[in-house]
C-alpha cells in the first residue's frame, strides 16, 4: 500500500491562521485531484470542521481514543471531492491527557491512512505531543504572522522541535546522557544558545558530527507568513530565512505568504469553504502557490525591491 505524505502545520502562537491555511492547502490539493485527508490535532481547541460548515461532526478523535474506532472509519466527508476530514475532540477538557501508548497508536494509524496527502492541523504551544506530531511529518510547516509575539513563539517552536528531534536521535545512539550533561553544564562550556550547543557537539567528535550529518541535516521547516498587509510584510519571510540560518543555525524554506483579506473572515463566518466560494480573492492564488512550493520543496520567489506601497498592486 502506498504511504501518503504527511504535512504538519504548527507554529507556536494561536490565532495565526493555522487552521485556515491547513484547510485551504488541503482543498487546493484535493482540487488538483490528490486524495487528501485533514486531521484536526488541536486537541484543546478543535475547529477545523467549521471551515467546511460542519458544526456538529458525527465522529471525532474521541471515538478513536475512547471507543477504539479505527482512524479510517471516523473520516468525514468535507463536501469537497477527494477531501476527507478527521475532526478533533470538541469540548474535551483534558487535551494533554493523551498518553504515550495512545499517541503511538494514533501515529501508527495516521501512517496507514489511504491517501496521497495527510495534513495535520496542530494546536498552539510547544507541548511534547504537539512537537512529536510535528516531527512525524514529511513536510514540517509553521504558520506565522508579521507580528513580534508570533515570531518569538515561532522561533521557540522551531528550536524546540529541533531540540526534541536531536534528543530522540541521540537516544538511539545511547548518547542522551552526553547531550543532557552538556546542556546542564552549559555555562561552563560557554554555551548560551541552541546554535552554540550544536556547534559544540559537532566539534566534540567525528562520530557525533556524522550523526548530525546523516540524521539532522534533513531538518528543514517550511515557513508561511499569513495575514500580510504591506509589501514589507512579504519580506519578513525572506528575513526569517536569513535569521534562522545565521542565528539559530537552522535552515528554513520560505514557502509562501497570504494576505489579510476581509473576504476570508466573511466566508468562515458564513461556513463556506473559502477556496471554493471566493475564487476572486488573491489569497486563492497565494494558497495555491505555497502548496506547490511545499510539494516541490522550493522557496517562493520574491522581488527584493518591494517598496512600502500598496499591496493591491502585487497580484
Amino acid at each position, binding site marked *: 500500500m502506498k504511504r501518503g505524505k504527511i504535512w504538519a502545520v504548527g507554529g507556536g502562537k494561536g490565532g495565526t491562521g493555522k487552521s485556515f491555511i491547513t484547510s485551504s492547502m488541503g482543498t487546493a490539493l484535493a482540487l488538483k485531484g490528490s486524495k487528501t485527508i485533514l486531521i484536526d490535532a488541536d486537541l484543546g481547541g478543535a475547529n477545523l470542521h467549521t471551515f467546511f460548515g460542519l458544526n456538529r461532526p458525527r465522529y471525532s478523535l474521541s471515538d478513536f481514543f475512547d471507543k477504539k474506532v479505527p482512524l479510517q472509519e471516523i473520516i468525514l466527508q468535507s463536501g469537497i471531492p477527494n477531501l476527507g476530514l478527521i475532526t478533533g475532540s470538541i469540548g474535551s477538557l483534558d487535551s494533554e491527557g493523551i498518553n504515550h501508548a495512545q499517541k503511538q497508536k494514533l501515529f501508527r494509524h495516521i501512517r496507514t491512512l489511504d491517501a496521497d496527502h495527510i495534513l495535520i492541523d496542530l494546536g498552539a504551544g510547544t507541548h511534547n505531543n504537539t512537537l512529536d506530531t510535528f516531527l512525524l511529518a514529511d513536510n514540517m510547516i509553521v504558520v506565522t504572522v*508579521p*507580528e*513580534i*509575539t508570533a*515570531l*518569538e513563539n*515561532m*522561533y521557540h517552536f522551531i528550536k524546540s522541535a529541533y531540540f526534541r528531534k536531536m534528543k530522540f536521535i541521540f537516544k538511539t545512539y545511547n548518547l542522551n546522557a552526553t547531550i543532557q550533561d552538556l546542556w546542564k553544564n552549559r555555562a561552563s562550556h560557554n554555551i*548560551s*544558545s*541552541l*546554535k552554540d550547543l550544536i556547534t559544540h557537539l559537532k566539534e566534540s567528535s567525528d562520530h557525533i558530527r556524522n550523526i548530525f550529518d546523516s540524521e539532522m541535516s534533513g531538518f528543514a521547516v517550511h515557513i508561511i507568513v499569513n495575514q500580510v498587509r504591506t509589501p514589507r510584510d512579504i519580506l*519578513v519571510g525572506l*528575513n*526569517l530565512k*536569513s*535569521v534562522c540560518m*545565521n*542565528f*539559530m543555525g537552522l535552515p528554513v524554506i520560505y514557502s509562501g505568504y497570504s494576505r489579510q483579506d476581509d473576504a476570508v473572515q466573511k466566508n468562515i463566518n458564513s461556513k463556506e469553504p473559502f477556496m471554493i466560494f471566493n475564487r476572486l480573492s488573491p489569497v486563492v492564488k497565494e494558497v495555491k502557490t505555497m502548496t506547490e512550493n511545499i510539494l516541490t520543496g522550493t522557496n517562493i520567489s520574491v522581488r*527584493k525591491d518591494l517598496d512600502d506601497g500598496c499591496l493591491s498592486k502585487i497580484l
Partner: protein
Amino acid sequence: MDVYLKYYDLLEQPPEATLEEISKNYSDLKTLYSGDSIEITALNSDFSQELQQDYLSRLDDAYEKLKLLLENKKPVLVKKTVIMDDSLSEWINSIKCFTGVALKSIRERMGVDLKDIFAATRIQPQYLEDIENEQFRSFRAEVYLRSYIVEYTRFLSLDTQKVLADYLPRYRKFHGHNADT
C-alpha cells in the same frame, strides 16, 4: 576559492551573482541586522550585541573581499556619458591634426576607458589600441579602419569627418610607402 564561497554564503548570494546583486544584498542584510526590525527583536537572547557585532564585521569583510575580486575581474561594462565641458571642447578645437596620439589624449582626458568603448561598440580593445598607436599593419583594408574610427569618434562625440580626413591619409601613406619597398 573556498574562502570566497564562504563570503558568497555570508552575503546569501550564489557565486554567479553580479557585484550589483551582491551590493544590494549587502545593504539589505546590513539594514536588517543593524536595526530593530521585528524579525531581529523577536530573537531575544539568540541575538546578543556581541553576536551582532561579530556578524556585521564578518559581513563587511566578506563584502570588501568580493568587491575587490569582482572589480578586478570584470570592469563595469556600461557606456559612460562623455562630459564635454567648454575648456575640453576648446582644447579639442585647437588640435590641428587628429593623429592616434591626439585621439588617445582626448579619450584619456575624458576619463574614458577602452573597455567602455568596447562595451558600446563591440570593437575589440586591441584594435582600438592599434588605432591610437597607429599600428597600421593591423588593418588590412581601409574600410575596416574607417568603420572603427566612425564608431570611436561617435562614442567620444568628436567631429567624425574631420578625424577621418586627418587620420586616413596617414594610413594610406603608410601602406603606399610599404608597397614601394
